[in-house]
């Protein structure tokens, strides 16, 4: 059993209402535990509560009910101070959706250094970490560039470098690929996967792209503020009906296999690679229906 680094216990968040708008429970009684070094995708449509959940986990919002445990420490307890939260943010970072609105400095390397500077790390150490972080995300060439001239994918990589320079162990990506073109999306996804696999960083990725979710070890599906499904991509996508019901898609390979299975072919559903899918279909057709 691996170490649990982040845990939500009966987490609830209610947006306060006023005269015109009733209070809305964006997250309701959500519980899960995240293992160290794991890669979890949180999937849901707009308004499913997934972004609120991200903000809760990053302690931008304080839960109205339930708890968040970071390395076993209750971050939602009464006696948690502003300073404790700052301390916790050394462990957990967030990369946001809009690449432009999270870059502070006018030079790439200065931006990567921003977080470390806030932590009061000595200059020489910051220099070393910034160089290393830029290397990990493959942006060393652009160290002295102005961020506004970079592509969306590059800007997101700069933002990622900023969090890893702070030596954070957990990174939450809040729809960080949503505003990018396919190339930028691939750049960012490749970077996320590398961070997770090679550097052992725990990743939580909020997304509504099925293909991206399929790359995770685990998918938590959110709907109406609650967990609709939770399992490996294979498990979650092999039960497509509930996903379809709430307006989510499954990968096209799964959709085709699902239709064939319904016709009586003996095929698995948890296949996301077109080549493997083709092989399975070819074999199934040979064997015929059962």
């Amino acid at each position, binding site marked *: 059993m691996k170490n649990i680094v982040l845990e939500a216990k009966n987490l609830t968040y209610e947006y306060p209402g006023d005269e015109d708008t009733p209070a809305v429970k964006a997250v309701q009684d959500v519980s899960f535990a995240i293992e160290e070094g794991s890669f979890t995708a949180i999937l849901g449509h707009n308004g499913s509560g997934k972004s609120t959940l991200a903000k809760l986990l990053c302690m931008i919002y304080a839960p109205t009910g339930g708890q968040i445990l970071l390395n076993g420490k209750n971050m939602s307890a009464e006696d948690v101070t502003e300073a404790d939260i700052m301390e916790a943010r050394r462990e957990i970072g967030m990369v946001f959706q809009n690449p*432009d609105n999270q870059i502070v400095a006018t030079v790439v390397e200065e931006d990567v250094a*921003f977080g470390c*500077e806030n932590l*009061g790390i000595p*200059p020489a150490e910051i220099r070393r970490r910034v160089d290393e972080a830029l290397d990990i995300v493959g942006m060393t060439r652009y160290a002295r560039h102005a961020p506004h001239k970079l592509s969306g994918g590059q800007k997101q990589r700069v933002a990622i470098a900023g969090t890893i320079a702070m030596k954070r162990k957990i990174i939450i990506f809040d729809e960080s690929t949503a505003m990018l073109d396919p190339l930028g999306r691939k750049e960012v996804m490749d970077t996320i996967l590398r961070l997770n696999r090679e550097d052992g960083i725990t990743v939580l990725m909020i997304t509504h792209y099925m293909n991206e979710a399929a790359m995770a070890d685990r998918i938590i599906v959110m709907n109406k503020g609650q967990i609709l499904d939770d399992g490996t991509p294979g498990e979650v996508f092999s039960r497509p009906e509930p996903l379809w019901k709430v307006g989510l898609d499954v990968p096209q390979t799964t959709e085709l296999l699902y239709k064939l299975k319904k016709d009586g072919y003996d095929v698995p559903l948890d296949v996301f690679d077109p080549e493997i899918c083709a092989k399975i279909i070819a074999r199934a057709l040979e064997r015929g229906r059962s």
Partner: protein
Amino acid sequence: MKSDIAFGQYCEGDSLLHRLDPRAKIILAVLYIVVIFLAKSAASFGLLLLFSAALVGVSGISPRIVLGSMKALTFIIIFTAVINIFWMQGEVLLFALGPVKVYLEGIINAVLIVLRIMLLLVCTSMLLTYTTTPIALTDGIEQLLAPLNKLHVPVHEFAMMMSIALRFIPTLIEETEKIMNAQKARGADFSEGSLLQRAKALIPILVPLFVSAFRRADELATAMECRCYTGGAGRTRMNVLRYDWKDFAAIGVVVLLGAAVVVLNILVPGIGLAM
């Protein structure tokens, strides 16, 4: 490429001037301005002209760019010259047009004052805007003013505001263009009609621009908080500004220059400024 305007003043380079510490450059600029005002005689102005030419030479920036930047000041230069020529009273009357009398002293004064304006411009642009990035300037000002922190002047916060503004100018220019295009596509017309109509035509641009700027500010604040930003206290910097011998040497040179100007004023008075 319009979004480059904000940084248009800075000329990329690796000259001695580029490499000086921004704080030293600000001090140098102030000192040099004092020296320029000390100059009274033609001889001392001659010395300063030579020195300024040397500055341009060292910076590696084309003299044409420097002269080009003076175009913006043409009006002020001509205005000052005219005022001096016609208002200045002296002893050697050159000619008179009715009540207006032009004296030789007036002409000399005009020439020297124009020279002074041009020297000021060259000095500030060479030392500051052309060879220092806006961000380095901001850093320099922040650190020079750091002692004011003790008087509870939020120096760091001002500097942070400045640098965020610099960071977002290109983004907002780009956004303005996008919004303008979008409204043009809906038939907006910014070039015709009365002043009032044209002002009204700007509303569909300004409202979305403000809304977006506030949204950006909000998101940026959250992002900064997530990156553990809590203001200036306890912060370190990756690039620490350090004076080295170059900076001290440069300041020494300008101090010597000031002394030379004073000496020249006394030893070679000749023709000079009357004021």
